[in-house]
Protein backbone atom coordinates (compact mmCIF):
# COMPACT_ATOMS: atom_id res chain seq x y z
CA UNK A 1 0.00 0.00 0.00
CA UNK A 2 1.68 3.24 -1.13
CA UNK A 3 0.63 6.55 0.37
CA UNK A 4 0.76 9.73 -1.72
CA UNK A 5 3.22 12.23 -0.23
CA UNK A 6 1.76 15.49 1.09
CA UNK A 7 1.96 18.68 -0.96
CA UNK A 8 5.21 20.65 -0.98
CA UNK A 9 3.27 23.46 0.72
CA UNK A 10 3.23 21.30 3.86
CA UNK A 11 6.99 21.81 4.23
CA UNK A 12 7.82 24.89 6.35
CA UNK A 13 9.51 27.69 4.39
CA UNK A 14 12.45 27.70 6.78
CA UNK A 15 13.22 24.05 5.88
CA UNK A 16 13.18 24.81 2.13
CA UNK A 17 15.34 27.91 2.70
CA UNK A 18 17.82 25.86 4.76
CA UNK A 19 17.90 23.15 2.10
CA UNK A 20 18.66 25.58 -0.74
CA UNK A 21 21.12 27.58 1.36
CA UNK A 22 23.05 24.53 2.51
CA UNK A 23 23.24 23.26 -1.07
CA UNK A 24 24.70 26.61 -2.23
CA UNK A 25 27.10 26.62 0.73
CA UNK A 26 28.30 23.13 -0.19
CA UNK A 27 28.91 24.21 -3.81
CA UNK A 28 30.65 27.43 -2.65
CA UNK A 29 32.84 25.40 -0.28
CA UNK A 30 33.80 23.04 -3.09
CA UNK A 31 34.74 25.97 -5.36
CA UNK A 32 36.75 27.55 -2.53
CA UNK A 33 38.85 24.41 -1.98
CA UNK A 34 42.18 24.23 -3.86
CA UNK A 35 42.11 21.92 -6.90
CA UNK A 36 43.33 18.39 -6.18
CA UNK A 37 47.04 17.99 -6.77
CA UNK A 38 48.47 14.89 -8.27
CA UNK A 39 50.88 13.31 -5.85
CA UNK A 40 52.56 10.26 -7.22
CA UNK A 41 53.07 7.58 -4.62
CA UNK A 42 56.21 5.52 -4.53
CA UNK A 43 56.22 1.77 -4.26
CA UNK A 44 56.98 0.65 -0.73
CA UNK A 45 58.16 -2.66 0.71
CA UNK A 46 55.44 -5.33 0.60
CA UNK A 47 53.87 -6.36 3.93
CA UNK A 48 55.21 -9.35 5.84
CA UNK A 49 53.99 -12.73 4.63
CA UNK A 50 52.37 -13.56 7.99
CA UNK A 51 50.54 -10.24 8.02
CA UNK A 52 49.24 -10.82 4.52
CA UNK A 53 48.01 -14.26 5.55
CA UNK A 54 46.12 -12.81 8.51
CA UNK A 55 44.47 -10.12 6.40
CA UNK A 56 43.60 -12.64 3.70
CA UNK A 57 41.02 -14.03 6.16
CA UNK A 58 41.78 -17.56 5.08
CA UNK A 59 41.51 -16.91 1.34
CA UNK A 60 44.99 -16.02 0.18
CA UNK A 61 44.19 -16.71 -3.50
CA UNK A 62 41.82 -13.73 -3.58
CA UNK A 63 44.36 -11.51 -1.79
CA UNK A 64 47.03 -12.50 -4.32
CA UNK A 65 44.74 -11.67 -7.23
CA UNK A 66 43.79 -8.29 -5.75
CA UNK A 67 47.42 -7.43 -4.99
CA UNK A 68 48.49 -8.36 -8.52
CA UNK A 69 45.78 -6.17 -10.07
CA UNK A 70 46.78 -3.32 -7.75
CA UNK A 71 50.46 -3.73 -8.69
CA UNK A 72 49.62 -3.89 -12.39
CA UNK A 73 47.65 -0.64 -12.10
CA UNK A 74 50.37 1.06 -10.02
CA UNK A 75 51.93 2.84 -12.96
CA UNK A 76 48.67 4.67 -13.69
CA UNK A 77 48.01 6.81 -10.63
CA UNK A 78 45.23 9.39 -10.61
CA UNK A 79 45.17 9.57 -14.37
CA UNK A 80 48.96 10.00 -14.60
CA UNK A 81 50.91 7.29 -16.32
CA UNK A 82 54.30 6.52 -14.84
CA UNK A 83 56.93 4.96 -17.01
CA UNK A 84 58.38 1.67 -15.83
CA UNK A 85 61.68 3.54 -15.46
CA UNK A 86 60.18 5.46 -12.52
CA UNK A 87 59.36 2.25 -10.66
CA UNK A 88 61.72 0.86 -8.05
CA UNK A 89 62.40 -2.55 -9.58
CA UNK A 90 63.94 -4.07 -6.53
CA UNK A 91 60.74 -3.34 -4.56
CA UNK A 92 58.67 -4.46 -7.53
CA UNK A 93 60.52 -7.77 -7.45
CA UNK A 94 59.73 -8.14 -3.74
CA UNK A 95 56.04 -7.54 -4.43
CA UNK A 96 55.95 -10.12 -7.23
CA UNK A 97 57.74 -12.60 -5.01
CA UNK A 98 55.32 -11.99 -2.14
CA UNK A 99 52.32 -12.52 -4.44
CA UNK A 100 53.79 -15.81 -5.61
CA UNK A 101 54.37 -16.83 -2.01
CA UNK A 102 50.69 -16.46 -1.14
CA UNK A 103 49.46 -17.96 -4.42
CA UNK A 104 52.20 -20.27 -5.78
CA UNK A 105 50.03 -21.65 -8.58
CA UNK A 106 49.52 -18.25 -10.19
CA UNK A 107 51.40 -17.52 -13.41
CA UNK A 108 50.46 -13.86 -13.54
CA UNK A 109 53.43 -12.40 -11.59
CA UNK A 110 55.84 -14.31 -13.86
CA UNK A 111 54.05 -13.09 -16.96
CA UNK A 112 54.21 -9.53 -15.62
CA UNK A 113 57.95 -9.88 -14.91
CA UNK A 114 58.88 -11.51 -18.23
CA UNK A 115 56.50 -9.71 -20.61
CA UNK A 116 55.55 -6.37 -19.04
CA UNK A 117 58.18 -5.11 -16.63
CA UNK A 118 61.08 -6.48 -18.71
CA UNK A 119 60.11 -4.05 -21.51
CA UNK A 120 61.67 -1.15 -19.58
CA UNK A 121 64.45 0.63 -21.53
CA UNK A 122 66.96 0.02 -18.76
CA UNK A 123 69.16 -3.06 -18.99
CA UNK A 124 69.78 -3.18 -15.24
CA UNK A 125 66.07 -3.33 -14.54
CA UNK A 126 65.52 -5.81 -17.36
CA UNK A 127 68.16 -8.09 -15.85
CA UNK A 128 66.50 -7.83 -12.44
CA UNK A 129 63.21 -9.07 -13.89
CA UNK A 130 64.82 -11.86 -15.89
CA UNK A 131 66.79 -12.94 -12.84
CA UNK A 132 63.55 -12.99 -10.84
CA UNK A 133 61.99 -15.32 -13.43
CA UNK A 134 65.13 -17.49 -13.33
CA UNK A 135 65.03 -17.78 -9.52
CA UNK A 136 61.32 -18.56 -9.47
CA UNK A 137 61.62 -21.20 -12.21
CA UNK A 138 63.36 -23.67 -9.85
CA UNK A 139 60.38 -23.66 -7.47
CA UNK A 140 58.05 -25.23 -10.03
CA UNK A 141 59.81 -25.99 -13.37
CA UNK A 142 56.84 -27.92 -14.77
CA UNK A 143 54.59 -24.86 -14.65
CA UNK A 144 57.07 -22.03 -14.92
CA UNK A 145 59.30 -23.15 -17.82
CA UNK A 146 57.54 -20.96 -20.42
CA UNK A 147 58.51 -17.77 -18.60
CA UNK A 148 62.16 -18.79 -18.39
CA UNK A 149 62.11 -19.75 -22.08
CA UNK A 150 60.85 -16.25 -22.82
CA UNK A 151 63.56 -14.82 -20.55
CA UNK A 152 66.17 -16.73 -22.56
CA UNK A 153 64.80 -15.24 -25.79
CA UNK A 154 64.90 -11.73 -24.27
CA UNK A 155 68.45 -12.24 -22.99
CA UNK A 156 69.55 -13.33 -26.45
CA UNK A 157 67.73 -10.82 -28.64
CA UNK A 158 67.07 -7.79 -26.43
CA UNK A 159 70.08 -7.80 -24.11
CA UNK A 160 72.44 -9.44 -26.65
CA UNK A 161 73.79 -11.39 -23.70
CA UNK A 162 74.35 -14.87 -25.05
CA UNK A 163 76.03 -16.27 -21.89
CA UNK A 164 72.95 -15.19 -19.88
CA UNK A 165 70.62 -16.75 -22.46
CA UNK A 166 72.70 -19.93 -22.29
CA UNK A 167 72.46 -19.97 -18.49
CA UNK A 168 68.64 -19.87 -18.74
CA UNK A 169 68.53 -22.43 -21.54
CA UNK A 170 70.79 -24.77 -19.56
CA UNK A 171 68.48 -24.49 -16.55
CA UNK A 172 65.56 -25.45 -18.80
CA UNK A 173 67.39 -28.54 -20.07
CA UNK A 174 68.63 -29.53 -16.63
CA UNK A 175 65.14 -29.32 -15.09
CA UNK A 176 63.19 -30.65 -18.07
CA UNK A 177 59.82 -32.19 -17.23
CA UNK A 178 57.44 -34.20 -19.44
CA UNK A 179 55.26 -31.06 -19.78
CA UNK A 180 58.13 -29.10 -21.32
CA UNK A 181 58.23 -29.19 -25.14
CA UNK A 182 61.41 -30.30 -26.90
CA UNK A 183 62.07 -26.87 -28.42
CA UNK A 184 62.49 -25.41 -24.95
CA UNK A 185 64.95 -28.14 -23.98
CA UNK A 186 66.87 -27.68 -27.24
CA UNK A 187 67.25 -23.92 -26.92
CA UNK A 188 70.79 -24.21 -25.64
CA UNK A 189 71.92 -25.87 -28.90
CA UNK A 190 71.01 -22.81 -30.94
CA UNK A 191 72.46 -20.41 -28.38
CA UNK A 192 75.74 -22.37 -28.38
CA UNK A 193 75.72 -22.28 -32.18
CA UNK A 194 75.23 -18.48 -32.11
CA UNK A 195 78.10 -18.21 -29.64
CA UNK A 196 80.30 -20.18 -32.04
CA UNK A 197 80.60 -23.00 -29.51
CA UNK A 198 80.00 -25.65 -32.16
CA UNK A 199 81.82 -28.42 -30.34
CA UNK A 200 79.73 -27.91 -27.21
CA UNK A 201 76.55 -27.78 -29.30
CA UNK A 202 77.49 -31.10 -30.91
CA UNK A 203 78.11 -32.61 -27.49
CA UNK A 204 74.70 -31.48 -26.27
CA UNK A 205 72.96 -32.99 -29.31
CA UNK A 206 74.99 -36.16 -28.97
CA UNK A 207 73.99 -36.40 -25.33
CA UNK A 208 70.34 -35.93 -26.17
CA UNK A 209 70.41 -38.61 -28.85
CA UNK A 210 72.33 -41.02 -26.64
CA UNK A 211 70.00 -40.53 -23.65
CA UNK A 212 67.28 -42.54 -25.39
CA UNK A 213 64.62 -40.14 -24.17
CA UNK A 214 63.73 -39.09 -27.71
CA UNK A 215 61.00 -41.18 -29.30
CA UNK A 216 59.65 -38.96 -32.07
CA UNK A 217 61.36 -40.03 -35.36
CA UNK A 218 61.05 -36.50 -36.77
CA UNK A 219 62.73 -35.09 -33.68
CA UNK A 220 65.57 -37.63 -33.96
CA UNK A 221 65.97 -36.88 -37.67
CA UNK A 222 66.03 -33.14 -37.00
CA UNK A 223 68.75 -33.50 -34.36
CA UNK A 224 70.76 -35.88 -36.54
CA UNK A 225 70.59 -33.39 -39.41
CA UNK A 226 71.59 -30.59 -37.08
CA UNK A 227 74.51 -32.68 -35.80
CA UNK A 228 75.70 -33.34 -39.36
CA UNK A 229 75.38 -29.65 -40.25
CA UNK A 230 77.39 -28.66 -37.19
CA UNK A 231 80.10 -31.25 -38.00
CA UNK A 232 80.27 -29.95 -41.57
CA UNK A 233 80.47 -26.39 -40.30
CA UNK A 234 83.26 -27.35 -37.83
CA UNK A 235 85.29 -28.99 -40.61
CA UNK A 236 84.91 -25.92 -42.84
CA UNK A 237 86.28 -23.78 -40.04
Amino acid at each position, binding site marked *: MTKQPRSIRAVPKIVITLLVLSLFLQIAWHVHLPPPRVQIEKLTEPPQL*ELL*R*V*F*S*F*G*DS*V*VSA*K*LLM*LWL*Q*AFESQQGQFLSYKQLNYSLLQHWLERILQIDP*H*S*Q*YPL*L*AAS*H*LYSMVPDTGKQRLMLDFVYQQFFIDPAKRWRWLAHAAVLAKHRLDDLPLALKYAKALTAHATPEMPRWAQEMQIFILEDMGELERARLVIGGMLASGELTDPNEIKFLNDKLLALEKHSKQK
Partner: protein
Amino acid sequence: MKPILTLAALVALEALRTRFFAVIIILLSIGFGLAIFVGQVTVIETLAYQSSLLAAFLRLSALYVVSLFVITSMVHEFNNHAIYLWLSLPMRRSTYFFGKFSGFALIATLTAILFGAALLSYVPYQQAGLWTLSLFCELLIITALSLLCVFTFPQTVQAFSVVLGFYILARSITAIQLMVQGPLSHSPSSADQLINGLVQLLAMLLPHLDRFTQSEWLVYHTGGVEHLLEIVIQTMIYIILLMSMSLFDLYRKNL
Protein backbone atom coordinates in the same frame (compact mmCIF):
# COMPACT_ATOMS: atom_id res chain seq x y z
CA MET B 1 6.22 -30.19 13.52
CA LYS B 2 3.42 -28.02 12.14
CA PRO B 3 4.27 -24.93 14.25
CA ILE B 4 7.90 -25.21 13.06
CA LEU B 5 6.78 -25.24 9.42
CA THR B 6 4.39 -22.35 10.01
CA LEU B 7 7.12 -20.24 11.60
CA ALA B 8 9.54 -21.14 8.80
CA ALA B 9 6.95 -20.19 6.17
CA LEU B 10 6.39 -16.86 7.92
CA VAL B 11 10.11 -16.10 7.82
CA ALA B 12 10.16 -16.89 4.08
CA LEU B 13 7.13 -14.63 3.59
CA GLU B 14 8.89 -11.85 5.49
CA ALA B 15 11.91 -12.21 3.19
CA LEU B 16 9.66 -11.81 0.17
CA ARG B 17 7.82 -8.82 1.65
CA THR B 18 11.00 -7.02 2.68
CA ARG B 19 12.38 -7.53 -0.86
CA PHE B 20 15.29 -9.63 0.36
CA PHE B 21 15.67 -11.27 -3.04
CA ALA B 22 15.77 -7.90 -4.80
CA VAL B 23 18.95 -7.23 -2.78
CA ILE B 24 20.30 -10.62 -3.91
CA ILE B 25 19.65 -9.74 -7.56
CA ILE B 26 21.31 -6.32 -7.14
CA LEU B 27 24.35 -7.99 -5.53
CA LEU B 28 24.51 -10.50 -8.38
CA SER B 29 24.42 -7.65 -10.91
CA ILE B 30 27.23 -5.80 -9.08
CA GLY B 31 29.21 -9.06 -8.94
CA PHE B 32 28.85 -9.65 -12.67
CA GLY B 33 29.81 -6.04 -13.35
CA LEU B 34 32.93 -6.54 -11.24
CA ALA B 35 33.76 -9.77 -13.12
CA ILE B 36 33.40 -8.03 -16.50
CA PHE B 37 35.65 -5.19 -15.33
CA VAL B 38 38.27 -7.65 -14.06
CA GLY B 39 38.08 -9.47 -17.40
CA GLN B 40 39.01 -6.22 -19.14
CA VAL B 41 42.10 -5.47 -17.05
CA THR B 42 43.71 -8.91 -16.81
CA VAL B 43 46.22 -10.13 -19.37
CA ILE B 44 46.21 -13.87 -18.63
CA GLU B 45 44.33 -16.11 -16.17
CA THR B 46 41.23 -14.01 -16.86
CA LEU B 47 38.78 -16.72 -15.81
CA ALA B 48 40.77 -17.38 -12.64
CA TYR B 49 40.72 -13.71 -11.70
CA GLN B 50 37.04 -13.34 -12.54
CA SER B 51 35.92 -16.44 -10.66
CA SER B 52 38.01 -15.79 -7.55
CA LEU B 53 37.03 -12.13 -7.18
CA LEU B 54 33.37 -12.77 -7.98
CA ALA B 55 33.33 -15.64 -5.46
CA ALA B 56 34.96 -13.51 -2.76
CA PHE B 57 32.46 -10.72 -3.38
CA LEU B 58 29.48 -13.10 -3.31
CA ARG B 59 30.74 -14.89 -0.21
CA LEU B 60 31.01 -11.65 1.78
CA SER B 61 27.72 -10.36 0.37
CA ALA B 62 25.93 -13.58 1.35
CA LEU B 63 27.28 -13.34 4.89
CA TYR B 64 26.27 -9.67 5.10
CA VAL B 65 22.69 -10.01 3.81
CA VAL B 66 21.82 -13.26 5.59
CA SER B 67 23.22 -12.14 8.94
CA LEU B 68 21.58 -8.72 8.69
CA PHE B 69 18.27 -10.29 7.68
CA VAL B 70 18.29 -12.66 10.68
CA ILE B 71 19.23 -9.89 13.11
CA THR B 72 16.80 -7.23 11.83
CA SER B 73 13.96 -9.73 11.59
CA MET B 74 14.47 -10.84 15.21
CA VAL B 75 14.98 -7.28 16.49
CA HIS B 76 11.72 -6.34 14.76
CA GLU B 77 10.04 -9.30 16.47
CA PHE B 78 11.30 -8.10 19.86
CA ASN B 79 10.25 -4.50 19.17
CA ASN B 80 6.72 -5.26 17.99
CA HIS B 81 6.32 -7.82 20.81
CA ALA B 82 5.44 -10.60 18.35
CA ILE B 83 7.78 -12.88 20.26
CA TYR B 84 5.60 -12.50 23.37
CA LEU B 85 2.57 -13.50 21.35
CA TRP B 86 4.33 -16.60 19.99
CA LEU B 87 5.61 -17.66 23.38
CA SER B 88 2.16 -17.22 24.94
CA LEU B 89 0.84 -19.94 22.63
CA PRO B 90 0.89 -23.55 23.84
CA MET B 91 4.23 -24.45 22.32
CA ARG B 92 7.70 -24.95 23.69
CA ARG B 93 10.34 -22.29 23.33
CA SER B 94 12.48 -24.78 21.43
CA THR B 95 9.68 -25.14 18.84
CA TYR B 96 9.72 -21.38 18.34
CA PHE B 97 13.50 -21.43 18.02
CA PHE B 98 13.59 -24.31 15.53
CA GLY B 99 10.79 -22.73 13.49
CA LYS B 100 12.70 -19.49 13.19
CA PHE B 101 15.97 -21.26 12.48
CA SER B 102 14.38 -23.40 9.75
CA GLY B 103 13.01 -20.29 8.05
CA PHE B 104 16.37 -18.53 8.13
CA ALA B 105 18.08 -21.73 6.95
CA LEU B 106 15.73 -21.79 3.96
CA ILE B 107 16.74 -18.22 3.10
CA ALA B 108 20.42 -19.20 3.47
CA THR B 109 19.88 -22.17 1.14
CA LEU B 110 18.28 -20.04 -1.56
CA THR B 111 21.03 -17.41 -1.25
CA ALA B 112 23.77 -20.06 -1.54
CA ILE B 113 22.10 -21.65 -4.58
CA LEU B 114 21.64 -18.33 -6.40
CA PHE B 115 25.21 -17.21 -5.70
CA GLY B 116 26.64 -20.62 -6.57
CA ALA B 117 24.74 -20.67 -9.87
CA ALA B 118 26.32 -17.30 -10.76
CA LEU B 119 29.74 -18.98 -10.78
CA LEU B 120 28.73 -21.63 -13.30
CA SER B 121 29.70 -19.35 -16.18
CA TYR B 122 33.32 -19.33 -14.96
CA VAL B 123 34.02 -22.69 -13.29
CA PRO B 124 33.13 -26.39 -13.79
CA TYR B 125 29.88 -27.43 -12.12
CA GLN B 126 31.59 -29.85 -9.69
CA GLN B 127 33.71 -27.10 -8.16
CA ALA B 128 30.83 -24.60 -8.23
CA GLY B 129 28.65 -27.24 -6.51
CA LEU B 130 31.24 -27.83 -3.81
CA TRP B 131 31.63 -24.08 -3.31
CA THR B 132 27.82 -23.70 -3.04
CA LEU B 133 27.50 -26.48 -0.45
CA SER B 134 30.36 -24.99 1.53
CA LEU B 135 28.78 -21.52 1.35
CA PHE B 136 25.52 -23.03 2.56
CA CYS B 137 27.31 -24.59 5.56
CA GLU B 138 29.05 -21.28 6.29
CA LEU B 139 25.72 -19.43 6.11
CA LEU B 140 24.10 -21.97 8.44
CA ILE B 141 26.78 -21.27 11.05
CA ILE B 142 26.33 -17.53 10.55
CA THR B 143 22.53 -17.89 10.84
CA ALA B 144 22.82 -19.83 14.10
CA LEU B 145 25.39 -17.33 15.39
CA SER B 146 23.20 -14.34 14.43
CA LEU B 147 20.27 -15.90 16.31
CA LEU B 148 22.45 -16.43 19.37
CA CYS B 149 23.75 -12.85 19.20
CA VAL B 150 20.31 -11.36 18.79
CA PHE B 151 19.03 -13.27 21.85
CA THR B 152 22.00 -11.99 23.84
CA PHE B 153 22.17 -8.43 22.46
CA PRO B 154 18.74 -7.51 21.11
CA GLN B 155 20.08 -4.46 19.23
CA THR B 156 21.07 -4.57 15.57
CA VAL B 157 24.40 -2.73 15.90
CA GLN B 158 25.72 -4.81 18.81
CA ALA B 159 24.53 -8.14 17.42
CA PHE B 160 25.89 -7.49 13.91
CA SER B 161 29.20 -6.22 15.28
CA VAL B 162 29.64 -9.43 17.28
CA VAL B 163 28.81 -11.57 14.23
CA LEU B 164 31.29 -9.60 12.11
CA GLY B 165 34.03 -9.83 14.76
CA PHE B 166 33.44 -13.56 15.17
CA TYR B 167 33.56 -14.12 11.40
CA ILE B 168 36.79 -12.16 10.90
CA LEU B 169 38.42 -13.97 13.81
CA ALA B 170 37.21 -17.39 12.65
CA ARG B 171 38.64 -16.80 9.19
CA SER B 172 42.00 -15.51 10.36
CA ILE B 173 42.59 -17.62 13.48
CA THR B 174 44.80 -20.17 11.66
CA ALA B 175 47.07 -17.40 10.35
CA ILE B 176 47.19 -15.76 13.81
CA GLN B 177 48.00 -19.14 15.33
CA LEU B 178 50.89 -19.60 12.90
CA MET B 179 52.08 -16.07 13.68
CA VAL B 180 52.32 -16.64 17.43
CA GLN B 181 53.66 -20.18 17.19
CA GLY B 182 57.15 -19.06 16.31
CA PRO B 183 58.13 -16.10 18.47
CA LEU B 184 55.70 -16.44 21.39
CA SER B 185 55.66 -20.17 22.08
CA HIS B 186 59.27 -20.21 23.38
CA SER B 187 59.22 -16.78 25.00
CA PRO B 188 59.82 -16.78 28.77
CA SER B 189 57.69 -13.61 29.20
CA SER B 190 54.39 -14.29 30.98
CA ALA B 191 52.57 -11.73 28.77
CA ASP B 192 53.70 -13.62 25.66
CA GLN B 193 52.63 -16.91 27.21
CA LEU B 194 49.23 -15.40 28.04
CA ILE B 195 48.72 -14.18 24.47
CA ASN B 196 49.85 -17.52 23.11
CA GLY B 197 47.44 -19.34 25.43
CA LEU B 198 44.60 -17.00 24.46
CA VAL B 199 45.18 -17.58 20.75
CA GLN B 200 45.31 -21.35 21.28
CA LEU B 201 42.06 -21.19 23.26
CA LEU B 202 40.35 -19.12 20.56
CA ALA B 203 41.57 -21.52 17.87
CA MET B 204 40.07 -24.37 19.90
CA LEU B 205 36.69 -22.68 20.30
CA LEU B 206 36.20 -21.07 16.89
CA PRO B 207 35.09 -22.93 13.75
CA HIS B 208 37.82 -23.00 11.12
CA LEU B 209 35.96 -20.92 8.55
CA ASP B 210 39.21 -20.36 6.62
CA ARG B 211 38.81 -23.93 5.34
CA PHE B 212 35.30 -23.21 4.02
CA THR B 213 34.32 -21.90 0.57
CA GLN B 214 37.85 -21.65 -0.81
CA SER B 215 38.48 -19.61 -3.97
CA GLU B 216 41.32 -22.05 -4.68
CA TRP B 217 38.75 -24.72 -5.61
CA LEU B 218 37.33 -22.43 -8.27
CA VAL B 219 40.67 -21.24 -9.62
CA TYR B 220 42.78 -24.42 -9.50
CA HIS B 221 39.95 -26.99 -9.27
CA THR B 222 41.43 -28.56 -6.15
CA GLY B 223 38.20 -29.12 -4.22
CA GLY B 224 37.15 -32.68 -3.44
CA VAL B 225 34.84 -34.83 -1.37
CA GLU B 226 37.32 -34.85 1.53
CA HIS B 227 36.92 -31.07 1.85
CA LEU B 228 33.14 -31.37 1.87
CA LEU B 229 33.21 -34.07 4.54
CA GLU B 230 35.41 -31.95 6.78
CA ILE B 231 33.15 -28.91 6.28
CA VAL B 232 29.93 -30.84 6.94
CA ILE B 233 31.31 -32.35 10.16
CA GLN B 234 32.55 -28.95 11.38
CA THR B 235 29.19 -27.35 10.50
CA MET B 236 27.17 -30.02 12.34
CA ILE B 237 29.29 -29.75 15.45
CA TYR B 238 29.22 -25.98 15.53
CA ILE B 239 25.52 -25.63 14.70
CA ILE B 240 24.63 -27.97 17.58
CA LEU B 241 26.89 -25.92 19.87
CA LEU B 242 25.37 -22.58 18.79
CA MET B 243 21.82 -23.93 18.97
CA SER B 244 22.39 -25.26 22.48
CA MET B 245 23.76 -21.87 23.54
CA SER B 246 20.81 -20.06 21.95
CA LEU B 247 18.27 -22.40 23.57
CA PHE B 248 20.03 -22.02 26.93
CA ASP B 249 19.72 -18.26 26.55
CA LEU B 250 16.14 -18.37 25.28
CA TYR B 251 14.92 -20.63 28.09
CA ARG B 252 16.56 -18.41 30.70
CA LYS B 253 15.18 -15.19 29.17
CA ASN B 254 12.38 -13.69 31.22
CA LEU B 255 9.91 -13.12 28.38
